[in-house]
């Protein structure tokens, strides 16, 4: 039997990588996207073919996690064997400004999808993956964080995601559903959204290199994260749903790096070495050779409640799933800077958020 997957949030970084992986494995893939007035399919354009052609395995549907009726209809029509819930308002800082929307999409949206599975009569046949997040650990209770570490969310995003996590566990226990959580630590890549700090840095380094920007403004330089490559992580996600028993897994690199290190490596890749001067809001990052100020701090980018030190322990995923991240941190940084340089130079057109319609050219 051909496996059939439904992916919410298919136009996002993870959804697109996952769609590509599943198509490679021979799945029929149904992707859900929100209807918006601009093109936002840059990350999946290279996967898409006209449905009138023969042998097409990738289909897009308009849906929204805030609309139960649409979700139920699509689940019933497509009869998926696996559902991956990758859709979310996934930006922590934005969640402080749009907490209600964040809760509606990330928390209630997950519930709506689980209920759609039950209503469609697929409780016993359809596996469910919930994209949970290391942000749920927030004010960390132990380091490194593993599956048994208590949660302490620190943002409306993390709170909404924690609801999604627990309601997934509850549907597994109450109805015997094959429903699992991946607790993913930060995972980046060249198609990361432009408002996320890693992508903001790689874009700025490219723009500064090309003489199109002077300064990179950042928030907390000492925030530490466990950063992996999204391409590695979607493989872990797929493995979670191939297990005979549903369970929850941390996917992480087990390494931690600061925003400051990311900045240094990114500039290092274009041949600039950064020296730091001053402290806190007054801290500056200068080009060692020219003395030009390239990095400044803007407290507007501080979070109202900061999460200081996230470091995941991927032992369970390694042992049970045979999964391990393969992209080293410096390689991740280099790949992101190279991709943004290529975009600026017109050699690559998949920058999300821009109205481009070309196939991705890696």
């Amino acid at each position: 039997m051909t496996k059939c997957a439904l992916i919410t949030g298919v136009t996002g970084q993870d959804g697109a990588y996952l769609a590509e992986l599943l198509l490679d494995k021979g799945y029929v893939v149904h992707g859900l996207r929100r209807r918006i007035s601009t093109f936002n399919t840059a990350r999946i354009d290279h996967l898409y073919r006209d449905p009138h052609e023969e042998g097409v395995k990738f289909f897009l549907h308009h849906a929204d996690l805030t609309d139960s009726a649409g979700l139920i209809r699509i689940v019933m029509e497509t009869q998926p064997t696996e559902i991956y819930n990758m859709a979310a308002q996934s930006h922590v800082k934005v969640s402080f400004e749009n907490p209600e929307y964040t809760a509606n999409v990330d928390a209630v949206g997950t519930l709506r999808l689980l209920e759609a599975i039950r209503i469609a009569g697929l409780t016993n046949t359809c596996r469910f993956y919930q994209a949970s997040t290391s942000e749920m650990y927030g004010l960390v209770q132990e380091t490194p964080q593993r599956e048994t570490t208590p949660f302490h969310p620190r943002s409306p995003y993390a709170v909404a995601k924690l609801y999604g996590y627990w309601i997934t566990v509850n549907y597994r226990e109450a109805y015997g559903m094959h429903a699992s959580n991946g607790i993913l630590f930060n995972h980046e890549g060249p198609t990361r959204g432009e408002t996320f700090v890693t992508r903001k840095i790689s874009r700025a380094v490219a723009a500064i290199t090309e003489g199109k920007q002077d300064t990179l403004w950042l928030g907390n330089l000492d925030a530490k994260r466990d950063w992996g490559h999204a391409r590695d992580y979607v493989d872990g996600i797929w493995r979670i749903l191939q297990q005979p028993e549903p369970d929850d897994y941390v996917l992480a690199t087990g390494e931690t790096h600061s925003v400051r290190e990311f900045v240094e490596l990114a500039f290092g890749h274009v041949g600039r070495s950064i020296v730091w001067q001053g402290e806190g809001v007054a801290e500056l990052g200068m080009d060692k050779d020219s003395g030009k100020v390239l990095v400044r701090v803007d407290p507007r980018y501080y979070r109202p409640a900061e999460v200081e030190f996230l470091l995941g322990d991927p032992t369970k995923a390694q042992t049970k799933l045979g999964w391990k991240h393969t992209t080293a941190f410096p390689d991740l940084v280099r790949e992101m800077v190279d991709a943004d340089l290529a975009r600026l130079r017109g050699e690559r057109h998949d920058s999300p958020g821009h109205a481009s319609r070309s196939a991705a050219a890696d």
Partner: protein
Amino acid sequence: MRSEKGTALVLGVAGQDGAYLARLLLDRGYQVHGVTRAADPAGLSNLVALGIADRVTMHACEIGSTSAMRALVEALRPAEIYNLAAQSSVGLSFGQPAETIDSIVPPTLAVLEAMRGTGLDARFFAAGSGECFGDTGAEPAEEQRPFRPASPYGVAKAAAHWLVATYRAAYGLHASNGVLFSHESPLRPPRFVTAKIVHGARAVAEKRLPMLKLGNLDITRDWGWAEDYVEAMWRMLQADVPQDCVIATGVPSTLEGFAARAFACFGLDWRAHVQCDPSLRRPTDIAVSVGNPARARSALGWQPRVTMPALVDRLVEAALRAPPPAL
């Protein structure tokens, strides 16, 4: 924005806790403003039963709407806000999970956003739940115990709890969760198992019911007295420093013990009159739920006055004073 001293806003004022809290606040000289979904007069029966229906100023407000909540808060400038509104039945939450979260998370967020947006120096009490802990095991749960909710109700209450904690940390709001374990009173509606048992035992004694059907009798709970719990809510908002508190008795009792005591009050042996009905079991049920009220004792000077098994006797006495309800 400066709040109006002595003005309190109670969301969910027509429920068991809302009614008792409103009475407590009125007794202490507060102007009490209330909001309830139950707009028809019959929905105010708890306020009528306590004789305070005409002393609470009622407001129509879609409490899940941030803008409506903000408008109400701006108009009243309450010094204390209590959110007791919720779809509060664990069993019902499996059948109505979306309605359950909609009744719990958006109203909590709306109050927090109203406080943040207006800068009102109000204090906020959010009714949390011992259900957030899931199965506590024999060791009573204190505030530091990690949550592990086991029902859509518990999951929604946990999300609301963390929103309150997040807003307190991020914006310095005086906002606190009372992590309330089960608390009973004669105002409990019969869909709750304790009220069902008390009224059922009476009905059996009065030969109106041959047999009382119950679900899982093996569960252990921490039952307290609602009037004690609203006292704890009020004390939490009188504390200068906001913090979350478990409100419980710390006394574990089984449902079987509860039923045995209730039937004994009518001179009956429960074993002859109770039938276990597996269809009444929940998809996931918590075996043990017991709280540790040590912090409430030390920080608030709060003590539960009514505990098991005397609590059952009180419920039976109250039931006998009331006309028999429809079963």
